[in-house]
Structures are given as structure tokens and as C-alpha cells.
């Protein structure tokens, strides 16, 4: 976050600078991404484009949601080399040699499937906008900490915002997945 003269942090600064970006300042580049186990070609995109922007606008991956673009809401969560990150804080061109996993790349069986089914069964999906990010974050959590207690679950999901459920249904869904595995 940048700091202005008053010491205020750039967090929360949503002012967009509308000056057109010239090709000289933001030249176009091409590279490959390793996305959900496949090599995807990214051609002719601005070098300052975020991973979120490239996934949605150039590769058509619409499960990665675009909301805050400030790393705060978690709706664009993906795994990068197995680590949960907000794809809006990743420079796409700098992800060129990393393995990027979206909700689609978590697999159609196993834990990710159980998480998805539980989200539906427990009413953890309402408008659905945050759901892909949550499924990525929850699947990652259960892989690392299968027996996480409720405090740990809440802490692990602090970076994913849901405006519909109040989180209670989401926690219940996760507990049911844990119970079924015991």
C-alpha cells in the first residue's frame, strides 16, 4: 500500500487514475501459464495485468470472480504452487512458471467434490458469487488441516467474504465433510 502525506494507507484507496495507459508504459507481452494442469497460451496482454485479469478476460475462466481487486474479499482465490492466494494480487506474467489451480482444477472427485456437495446440501451457497473462492480455500484447509476446529476454520477463511450466509451454513458444511471422513 502506498502512503500519502497524512500517513493514510492505500488500503481502502479505491480512487482509479483514469489516465490512458500508453503502449509504451504498459507494453503487451505473451507467455504461457500452467493452469489446472494444462498449458495455456496468453498472447498480447498488458504486462501489468493481474492473474485475475488474465484468467477472466483472456482465458475465459469465469469461476474466478472479480470483486474488490485489492486482495480483501477472496472471491478470486486460487492456489499458486499449492499456496492459497488472491489472484488479483499476483502479476500474471510473474506466474508464468507456477502451477495455478482454480476450483475447476481441484478435481471432480475426492475432497473437492465432498466440499462442493456439502456446500449445496447445507445451504452454504446463496447468491453463489463467493462460492468458487470458498471451495478453493476450504479444500486447501482440509488438505492441510483435516481436523481443524471451528476457530481454526474461521481463521483460515478470514480472507474470504460472504455477504449472504453469515458463515454459519459454511461452517456447518465444512463440519459435515470432516464428520463424514472420520
Amino acid at each position: 500500500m502506498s502512503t500519502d502525506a497524512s500517513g493514510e494507507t492505500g488500503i481502502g484507496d479505491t480512487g482509479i487514475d483514469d489516465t490512458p495507459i500508453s503502449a509504451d508504459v504498459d507494453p503487451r507481452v505473451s507467455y504461457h501459464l500452467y493452469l489446472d494442469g494444462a498449458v495455456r497460451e496468453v498472447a498480447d496482454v498488458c504486462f501489468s495485468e493481474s492473474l485475475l485479469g488474465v484468467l477472466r478476460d483472456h482465458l475465459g475462466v469465469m469461476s474466478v470472480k472479480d470483486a474488490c481487486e485489492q486482495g480483501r474479499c477472496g472471491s478470486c482465490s486460487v492456489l499458486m504452487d499449492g499456496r492459497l492466494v488472491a489472484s488479483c494480487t499476483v502479476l500474471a506474467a510473474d506466474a508464468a512458471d507456477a502451477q495455478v489451480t482454480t476450483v475447476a482444477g481441484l478435481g471432480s472427485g475426492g475432497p473437492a467434490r465432498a466440499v462442493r456437495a456439502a456446500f449445496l446440501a447445507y445451504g452454504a451457497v446463496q447468491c453463489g458469487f463467493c462460492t468458487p473462492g470458498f471451495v478453493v480455500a476450504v479444500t486447501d484447509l482440509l488438505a492441510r488441516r483435516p481436523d481443524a476446529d471451528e476457530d481454526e476454520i474461521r481463521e483460515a477463511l478470514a480472507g474470504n467474504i460472504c455477504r449472504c450466509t453469515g458463515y454459519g451454513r459454511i461452517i456447518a458444511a465444512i463440519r459435515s465433510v470432516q464428520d463424514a471422513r472420520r
Partner: protein
Amino acid sequence: MIAAGARLYRPLTVADAVEVLADGDAELLAGGTDLVPALRTGRRRPRRIVALRRVLELRSRGAGADTLIIGAGVTYHDLVGWSLSPGLAATARVVGSPQIRNAGTVGGALGTANPRGDLLTFLTAVDAEVVLRGVHGMRTVPVGSFLDAGASPTELVTAVRLPRPCGPQLYLKVGSRQAASATVVSCALVVDRVRERVNCAISGVAGRPMRPLAAEEFVRDQVDWSTATLSADAVIRFGELVTEAAGIAVDPLPDDLLVSAAYRGHAAGVLAARAAGRCLSGPVRSRDASTASVTATPSTAPVVSAPDGRLRV
């Protein structure tokens, strides 16, 4: 990966990175949690970017006899589990969300130099040193001078160096939703039982984390060092002295929309007293402090809970 002449450089070594920096007009990119959103809004428009993700030599951390050294590429996530510095672990644990802790780095925290940066506050408390590297070589500066001077555009931070802990350490903060917004006020407290010293840093009251030196001196004299305990009265007085120090900070942060400067000074004293009470309550203590919850003071700023970084000695 990117053709020559391009604007994105992804060096494998520090030496290559500083060479690009020396040409000027280049910005470093580490975890991207500060820089990438700023690129998107247009707040930052660097002509060239030097991405450090592939520079493995920046990711190491280690311990000498008296010091810990942490590479600039080490993430908050890496620090959370680091048993050699409970204070650093406690500090890293209350930064942002898992997404931010997985990506954000030590070098990025210093590069951003937010006056309320959690890591900077802890590093200020322990008198850390910042190791910088440019084409002309390496130099080491105290973290305070680094923050006063600002990062040089042709140097990069390669590491920070701090003393190994010799006693309890704690980091407490208040703010609104931790995963999404900056700290309002925080306090790092570090007890050194060998040198018989108590260091304290508070953020959120001045342009950079500050040390309430008179308050530190007061505690040092009041502690019974044979048991490392502080009387309840002295704990209260310590908090008052910290609030006083905040009131006479040289470059005070002004009132803002959410919190007044007076509230922040008060909160700093509350946090400092609470930290001192926990760190200096004697060698034997029940486990009740293993999860510390910061209670609300009258203000619009809600509550953030912080884990206890106590080290039993």
C-alpha cells in the same frame, strides 16, 4: 521467459536484480500484495518491474549465536511457524488473511514502509538491522534510519537481522477487520532477561513505529529481574507513560475519519500495559493467556484478537 527489451525482469540472483535497478526507473515486485492492486488502479506506473519471486537466495532464514537473519523473500506464512522467534511468529500471524500471509514478504513490508506495518513495528522494538544491496555492494542500516530515509530506488533489501529472543515477546494490535484493513494501533513488547531490558514499539501514532523510551526506562527499573515480574501498579504506570509518549510524538498522525489521535494514544497505552502485564507476570503462569483477546475501548474501531507470543524462559 520474457524477451529481451521487455519491461518485466525475472532474475534468478540478487546480483542480476540490482543490475537492472541500477539502470533506474524500475520497481521491485515481491509478493505483489501492495504493488499489483496499485498497478491496477494506476496509483503506480513503473516503466520496468523486477520480479523477485525466482530469487531463491532471498528466501532463506537462519540463526547465528546471537542473531536471526531473515531473507527479504520470506513470507508471513513462513514466519508464523518459526519457533526461533515467537514474537515474530505472533506478529506475522495477525497480518491480513491466509491469502495475504502466503504472498506478502518481509522485503515488501520494508519497501512499502507503511507507518502501521505490523512487521515494521516488531522490527523497531527489537532494534533490527536492514541489509541492503546495490551495485556498489552491501550495507546495513538500523531499521529506524531505513524508515526515515526511505528505500533507495537502486538498492534492494536482501534481509533483516535481529537479536535472538532472550525472554517473553508479545505483539498486540487493534483495528477493524484484520483480513481486509490496516492496523489502527499496535504494540510490540520485547523482554530481554539477559540484558535486563524491556523494549517497546507502538504504531499508529506517528509517521513510523515509535519507541516510548522514557516508559521503557521506567519498566526496566521497576522489574524484579530475579523473577522477571512487574507490580500491578507499575504495569498501569507503564501504560500511562506510553500514552504520554504518544501525545508528544514528533510527527503525530492526525485524526482520521474513524479514529482520533487521542483514541490512538489511549489504545497504545492500553495495549502496552496489557503486553507488559502478560510478559512480566513471573515465570509460572497458567495457560489462560494462550489466546489473547484485545477488548474494545470506546471507539468506532472494533476488536481484533491476537495470539500470545509468550516465550517461557
